[in-house]
């Protein structure tokens, strides 16, 4: 049974660079167009539907990043959403924030463009 190696500083540096260098980053299993896990699909689906420009990072392609991102945010699961360098949450939190409208105010407050009509449609559809 392999014990998870402690995350190398190189992996953490790469994560820091990506998170700092992009307004919105989604660490996910698969890609925005080919998600490979239900939770990742849910979050990527919301971001795609409301037209947010984001960088997707497929953790399945890099074991160091897959473990590293969990150490970086002290959060054990994937997906993980970052906005302007800050960890926002995993799938449950992003869906809750989408339905409550908090995600809209977060994006608006941070100057991130998105389609608020589409966001409203998600809330209507989820009654």
């Amino acid at each position, binding site marked *: 049974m392999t014990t*998870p190696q402690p995350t190398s500083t190189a992996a953490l540096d790469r994560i820091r660079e990506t998170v700092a260098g992009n307004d919105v980053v989604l660490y996910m299993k698969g890609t925005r167009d080919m998600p490979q896990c239900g939770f990742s699909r849910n979050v990527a689906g919301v971001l795609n539907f409301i037209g947010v420009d984001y960088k997707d990072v497929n953790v399945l392609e890099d074991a160091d990043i897959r473990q590293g991102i969990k150490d970086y945010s002290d959060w*054990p699961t994937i997906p993980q959403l970052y906005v302007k360098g800050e960890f*926002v*949450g995993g799938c449950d939190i992003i869906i*809750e924030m989408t339905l409550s409208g908090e995600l809209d105010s977060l994006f608006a407050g941070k100057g991130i463009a998105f389609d608020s009509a589409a966001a409203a449609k998600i809330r209507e559809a989820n009654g």
Partner: protein
Amino acid sequence: MAMEARDIETLIRAAFPQARITITDLAGDGNHWAAEVIDESFRTMNRVQQQRAVYASLKGKMDGPHGELHALALTTKAPE
């Protein structure tokens, strides 16, 4: 090795002795669970802090290379 509802509740209960904990088996395979944890300590925490505390109570059972618990949909809040 899949987990049982009792196992999950016991781990969370150890960290949140007074919490109201509801565990639901989403897929009947011992691997896809939903947990609702209602505890007074959450009143002063935001969602990320609340869920981080619950994940910490699960002591590495989540999604790691030997993560027994593949999927746990978490809902956390303070009592109304």
